[in-house]
């Protein structure tokens, strides 16, 4: 029996079908959003008419928390302007268009990646060098949140990390992208873990994988056994949100991140398995983050696809067999925390871990009933909060009380909304309350500093 976190949690239907990774042909055009990560948007480093090559940086990180962007195809920059995001907003982007020759050239280069460093050279890299390399490669957390990785690797002054937690839980239903990467390239992940351990200066790493991925556990254990550093692979109980950062740290180390604190305050730094692999490839091949593995579900040919960042969602869906006529909702990410999109004629980003096509009849919900005070949400909350209470407080704009009830501790995992028999939109209200309270806290701090 695997280890698990200490409070709440739910068991949604897993709906996972192990699939290998299929390469998607490079598209003729990509639209690279400048804000694909948490933090400040990147700044365009090219202008209209410039020629770019696959792997070139087209936008630089701007500010402390930011990440640069690279193009996955060679061609000409046709547009540096605002374009539509999947969520229906306009945002700054760069469009690159390839011609026939570029296209063939890229496919050849994609197939024959040459190492630019030897393994010995990798072992000689120091922490600072690794962090710089990660930043240059534009790597962000690939689990879905897309937080710039080099920022997470820079341990704040006065704190010391002692363990690297590697997240292979993949607790979201449907998603199998991390599973596929762990099964197919465990050695690359292990290489990445070694680099990450040096980047945060720790001697120990723990990889957590949910028990519903037995092949991945075997592959990772085998890779860990011959990697030469202290890496333990720990099977985790299948329970959502096992892959939540705080839940995972507790499950693997028994440490509780204090409310409002960073994981590193208990000595842990968490990285996703796919991120570890991206770090390895960046170090060995000099390959920036311009492609990722995306799980597609609900189409005629579901599976895991290696997709260039910036490719249109409609194109990926076409490759995956097209969407059914009675499609009701399309979600980027997993069904628990993913976001419903407004249009498919918009590009994929570095954080797109999955594309789920949900039929109209599955997307429709029963009518909202009055709360029957069953307490299911309280039982399900992995943060020990009372969702029924904080959602009601938020709904009636009682923000002082909501703050007292720690609405800002919510990790937005959606367990409360999932279990509610009265179909109440608990998380929607909580999100509103959390955002408002967080803003009020910021304002208060600012006022204090001004004085």
């Amino acid at each position, binding site marked *: 029996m695997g280890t698990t976190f200490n409070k709440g949690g739910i068991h949604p239907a897993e709906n996972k079908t192990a699939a290998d990774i299929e390469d998607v042909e490079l598209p003729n055009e990509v639209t690279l959003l400048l804000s694909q990560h948490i933090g400040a948007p990147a700044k365009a480093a090219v202008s209209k008419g410039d020629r770019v090559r696959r792997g070139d940086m087209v936008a630089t990180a701007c500010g402390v928390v930011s990440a640069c962007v690279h193009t996955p195809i060679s061609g000409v920059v046709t547009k540096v302007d605002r374009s539509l995001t999947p969520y229906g907003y306009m945002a700054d982007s760069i469009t690159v268009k390839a011609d026939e020759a570029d296209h063939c050239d890229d496919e050849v280069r994609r197939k024959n990646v040459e190492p630019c460093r030897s393994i010995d050279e990798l072992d000689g890299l120091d922490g600072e060098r690794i962090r710089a390399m990660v930043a240059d490669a534009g790597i962000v957390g690939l689990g879905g949140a897309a937080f710039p990785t080099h920022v997470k690797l820079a341990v704040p002054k006065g704190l010391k990390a002692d363990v690297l937690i590697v997240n292979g839980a993949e607790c979201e239903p449907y998603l199998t992208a991390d599973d596929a990467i762990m099964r197919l390239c465990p050695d690359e992940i292990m290489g990445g873990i070694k680099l990450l351990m040096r980047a945060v200066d720790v001697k120990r790493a723990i990889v957590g994988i949910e028990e519903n991925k037995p092949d991945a556990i075997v592959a990772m254990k085998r890779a860990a056994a011959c990697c030469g550093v202290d890496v333990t692979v720990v099977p985790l109980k299948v329970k959502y949100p096992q892959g939540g950062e705080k839940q995972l740290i507790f499950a693997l180390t028994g440490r509780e991140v204090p409310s409002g604190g960073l994981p590193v305050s208990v000595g842990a730094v968490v990285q996703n398995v796919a991120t570890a692999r991206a770090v390895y490839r960046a170090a060995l091949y000099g390959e920036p983050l311009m492609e990722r593995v995306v799980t597609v579900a609900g189409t005629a040919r579901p599976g895991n696809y290696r997709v260039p960042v910036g490719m249109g969602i409609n194109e990926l869906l076409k490759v995956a067999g097209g969407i059914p006529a009675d499609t009701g909702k399309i979600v980027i990410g997993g069904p628990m925390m993913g976001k419903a999109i407004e249009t498919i004629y918009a590009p994929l980003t570095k954080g797109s871990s999955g594309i789920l096509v949900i039929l109209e009849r599955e997307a429709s919900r*029963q009518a909202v009933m009055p709360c029957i005070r069953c307490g299911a949400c309280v039982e399900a909350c992995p943060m020990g909060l009372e969702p029924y209470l904080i959602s009601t407080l938020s709904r009636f704009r009682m923000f002082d009380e909501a703050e007292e009830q720690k609405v800002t501790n919510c990790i937005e995992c959606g367990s409360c909304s999932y279990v509610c028999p009265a179909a109440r*939109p608990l998380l929607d209200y909580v999100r509103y309350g959390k955002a408002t309270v967080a803003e009020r806290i910021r304002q208060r701090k600012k006022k204090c500093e001004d004085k």
Partner: protein
Amino acid sequence: MENMLIISGSPHVHTSRTVRSCMWHVVAALVPALGCALFYFGLGALAVVSVSVLSCMAFECLIERYMLGRRPQLSNGSAILTGLLLALNLPSNLPAWIVVIGALVAIGIGKMSFGGLGCNIFNPALVGRVFLLLSFPAQMTSWPLPLADRLEYVDAATGATLLSRIKMGEVSADDIDLVDNALGLVGGSLGEVGSIALLLGMIYLLATRIISWHIPLSIMGTVALFALCIGSNVGVELLSGGLLLGAIFMATDYVTSPMCHKGMVVYGVMIGLITMVIRHWGAYPEGVSFAILLMNGFTPLINRYIKPRKFGERRMAK
């Protein structure tokens, strides 16, 4: 097509459990107890159950439509459940007009006056029962004998319940055959007889995760411990006086019980204590209903002061 995509906040999958399915699970868990009641009391049980259920449904429907001006939602099963629970708390020879009054008080005052489903403070079925107990003490404390006159309704032969006989000093607790007691071969309300049937219901509710063990087990545990301490017969205390019915089906009512597990245990222990105090030092031979109603009143307070421990707050110095 793309301009018609549904946009909504996460999560995008939900449990298949609904308010309606919760209610029907509880109704299903009551089936063994109902079967028992019909077997022991025959026609009387049938009459009381059907009058109670039908009048609860009718009152809910009428009040929602004509007083609150909303569409009645009988299909969510909550009125049916209230009717069933009320019936199980009544003697099988109770005249139909009294049952109707009980249903009116249960639904009208116990539930609808607070705003309907989810808003009531007190368990509606118990409000109805206690109202009847105080208003019609004679009819409410004459209990038909099981298996005696199964074809009679109001004229069935009656006797006092075990606990009141013990209280009156008619029998000593040690003379009681626990097997008879467990099988329901003693006088009592519809739902008091057939402990095994009630326990089956509890197993069903626990297995389907409609209720957690916290409330029923803390009530039963407290009663058993208390009985041990004062030297009373543990078996009799547990198996009679509607304790099982109360602990399994009445105290666990979602709306009127605390929200978190810690609160549930406090609530259960208090119900157990109050029950035993009433039984041994109060005016009534049994006190489960009063104990539950009292603690229903304390539930908002329990919810306010007894909270789950928040993740990450373990070492927070206050």
